[in-house]
């Protein structure tokens, strides 16, 4: 458990301007000629200060990414959520085996009998099945494939 805790980053120290930037930019960058200048003006910052702080927030891992958020399926790819029941003694080996697949976009340990949950993003929808079969071979475990059947909402917004 101490290992698991060590993998969880500590909450960051943020000042008021950082918070305004994070809240505003989760909403999306306006698609205008000078988008950072436009956002900076809204937040009463200079463009230079916004860019500097944004870079710092990315370097510090407060933001994991800043950029276009793609709709994988509309771009023609395959996407699914999958889960494994991993024996505790084998957890590190299976983590390495699963993470080695470039199609694994994220992977979380979760507290359940199904204790490993990962998202697969592939070149084509057909490729999902092939990658799942390959993961079953690599891990020796049965993959639970849970593709979305309907999307009711996707909009992560964490106010700070």
């Amino acid at each position, binding site marked *: 458990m101490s290992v698991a805790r060590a993998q969880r980053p500590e909450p960051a120290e943020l000042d008021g301007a950082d918070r305004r930037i994070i809240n505003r930019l989760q909403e999306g*960058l306006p698609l205008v000629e000078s988008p950072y200048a436009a956002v900076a003006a809204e937040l009463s910052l200079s463009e230079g200060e916004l860019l500097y702080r944004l870079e710092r*927030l990315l370097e510090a*891992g407060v933001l994991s990414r800043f950029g276009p958020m793609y709709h994988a399926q*509309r771009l023609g790819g395959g996407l699914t959520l999958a889960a494994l029941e991993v024996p505790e003694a084998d957890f590190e080996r299976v983590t390495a085996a699963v993470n080695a697949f470039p199609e694994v976009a*994220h992977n979380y340990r979760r507290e359940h009998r199904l204790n490993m949950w990962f998202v697969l993003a592939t070149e084509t929808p057909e490729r999902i099945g092939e990658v799942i079969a390959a993961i079953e071979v690599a891990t020796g475990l049965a993959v639970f494939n849970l593709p979305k059947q309907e999307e009711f909402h*996707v909009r992560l917004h964490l106010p700070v």
Partner: protein
Amino acid sequence: MSVSTCPSEPQADDTSANGLDAIDRAIVLATQAGLPLVPDPWGAVGKPLGLAGNEVLARMRRMQANGMTRRIAAVPNHYRLGYVANGMTVWDVDDAHIERLGREVAAIPGVSHCYRRPRHLPEWPYNLFVMLHGRTREEVERQAEALRERFGDACRDHRILYSSRILKKTGLRLARRLGSPR
């Protein structure tokens, strides 16, 4: 042609079934790690592709309008923002009511993702997935309790699966896919 082997000379005539042409694909490739943090990000993206900034901006607008990109935004690390309790709540909801309930739940503030997914009986009876984020587990449990009340008799069972460790988080990498010949 393949974008990955010839990124500097995208041709507009290579349009694939999803409506992206080679120039769109080159722009997606160039921005998937992130948008440049410079005053003219469109020009910075376009320069190595031989495109003017206003062409890049026009294409970004079109891709957002037709839903290929959801938006250009900051993706926070939940833990670093103090959201240390991240619960994937899973619900066994009556199929007859899942459409209506899915839509209702999606409208609740604090719900970030809400999907219908297949059951795998008998091991996995849950068909509705709702992500909840809180600064404490109590906060997530209060949100889950509110959902439970809203579902009423249409929900047979639910669980909260907290994440205890990020094992990998690279985000979607579309490069190989978009670069590969179709």
